[in-house]
Structure formats: C-alpha cells, structure tokens
C-alpha cells in the first residue's frame, strides 16, 4: 500500500504496549467527495494525543472527543458526519461529502 496508514497501526500497538488507553478510528463508508479513503485510520490515546486522519482535519476534533469515551467504556461506536448532519454548523465536511467512522478501543 502506498500510504503510511499502517505506520499508524504500528503506533497504536506501541502506544497500547506502553500502557496507554488507545482508540482506533476507521473510515468505513463515504458518500460524495470525501477527503480520506475508506480504511483510513486515526488513533487517539487517553491524553487526546492523535496520529493519522479520517478527514482533512474537518471532523477530527469531534472524533477525538468520542474516542475518549470509547477508551473509557470500551463500547465501539459508529459516527457519521456530513453537511446534511444536524451538527453541520459545528463539525462537518466543507467538501459536501459524508463519512461514517467506526471507533473501537484497542483492548
């Protein structure tokens, strides 16, 4: 693969082994023009440090907030973002696309 997404997965492993709580966010579905391809990863640790991306920076803040909850309770979540979303004024994709993101804890 021509990407460094797998370096992100390696970092997720390293962070977890170092004893940090870690969440893995993955783009699982896109509609229209989406900034990052399906399969792109963002990882987040319990201190909100992050690596990788699931959009061009549009929704990362919101994903990080949700990821901290996932790290706390261990329940995977599916998040959806797009201009049609009611949260569009706060977070959304200026490109007009829509994306679905799966967030899970690294156990």
């Amino acid at each position, binding site marked *: *693969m*021509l990407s460094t997404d797998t370096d992100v*997965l390696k970092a997720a492993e390293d962070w977890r082994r170092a004893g940090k709580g870690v969440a*893995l966010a993955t783009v699982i579905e896109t509609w229209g023009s989406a900034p990052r391809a*399906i*399969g792109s990863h963002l990882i987040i640790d319990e201190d909100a440090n992050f690596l990788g991306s699931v959009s061009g920076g549009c929704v990362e803040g919101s994903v990080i907030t949700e990821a901290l909850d996932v790290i706390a309770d261990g329940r*995977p979540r599916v998040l959806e973002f797009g201009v049609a979303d009611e949260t569009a004024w706060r977070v959304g994709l200026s490109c007009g696309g829509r994306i679905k993101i*799966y967030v899970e804890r690294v*156990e």
Partner: protein
Amino acid sequence: MKLEMLSRLNGERAARRAAIIITDIQSGEQRLVGQDAIAQDPLAPLLDLHLTRGKSALVEHDGRQFFLTVQEPPLKVVIIGAVHISQALIPMMKQLDLSITVVDPRTAFATPDRFPDVSLLTMWPDAVLPSLGFDRYTALVALTHDPKIDDPAIITALRSQCFYIGALGSRKTHERRIERLTNAGFIEADLSRIRAPIGLDIGATSPAEIAVSILAEIVAAFRNERRGSA
C-alpha cells in the same frame, strides 16, 4: 480490537504478507484472516475481491454488515543504479512507505556514504535479482542506462508480474533496448510494459524533479490499475 490481533496484523505486514481484519459492525466481533487462510473463510469470495482491489470496504453478508480492513503487503521498489537520481528518489520513496533495495555492481557508486539507511547490494543484477522475489507488489526502476547492468534487471522484471518497469534513457537509447530485448525473444506485448523514457512527462530536469516524475508514474501505475478493476 484486541492488542494481540493488531499485533498480528502489524506482523503480517512486516513479513510482507496480505491480511484482512473482518469486523462485525453490529456486534464488534473481529477476526484476522491471513492471505493463506482466505479460501477457508465463509466470506472468501468477498475477501478475494477486495484484496484484488486493494481497498478496505464495508460489505454485507447474510444480512449483516462487515467492515473489511484490507492490508496489502508494502510495495517494494528495486532501483538499479546507485546514481544521483536514486539519491533524490530514496527519501521521497520513504515518505510513501516503499521498501527500497538499490542494486549496482560499481563499487565507486554503491557506497554506504552515498546511500545510508537503505538496502544496498553491490552486485550484478542477474546474480541478485532472482532472490528479491519480484511479485505484483514490486516495481523496477532501472537508472544506469548501461545495458550490461539494466538489461538483465529488465528481463527479470518482464518475466515477473511486477506492476511497474521504468527505464532511464532517451528515446534512441530505448529503441536500441527494444531491439536487444526483441532479439532476446520478447514480444511487443511484453516490451510495452516498459515505461521509457522513465517518469511522467513534466519537463523534469534536475535529479529531484526527475525523481518526482518517476514516483508519480509509480503511484499512477499502482493506483490506476486498481481503479480499473474496481
């Protein structure tokens, strides 16, 4: 995801093997399927399809939604020629996560000082290339424009399924190369796989600019092929 599974996924990648993680979106259940276990999996046809496309995907099976995290082996590039362009290419290729091997039998060129932090083989291509495992995730970049060094490498690549073969040299140099390879028994369909003069035509002149044009051509060769099959 269990740390053990993430660790296995990273391990498969380090070993240059394909792997897929299947996630049941409703239940969160997951399993990792290595390339050799695909045929035995209940989702085998879907796994095959998406591995060929080289893309992760959300799929449906028996009314359930599964996400397939598709991990292809890392792309490998074999550069023939420890030359100036190679020096410019290598740092750019590292940014793209490519595994790089440089082959050049000329000890004056192939020195660790000129090529730090990269696998550098001071050997003739015919001696070393068969052991490098040319597969559909491999690209050959031939940069010496010396037929004694480039030709055996190109011949190895033509006999493999590698996804990219680029060769430096003017159109005239390439005409003579085609002549030699035709005499060696290759037909037009084989020879059309060679991209020469190497690189996208962006008017590149400096070694770094030529490196950009080569790298862009490699990305295009890999991505367009998969886009076509999607």
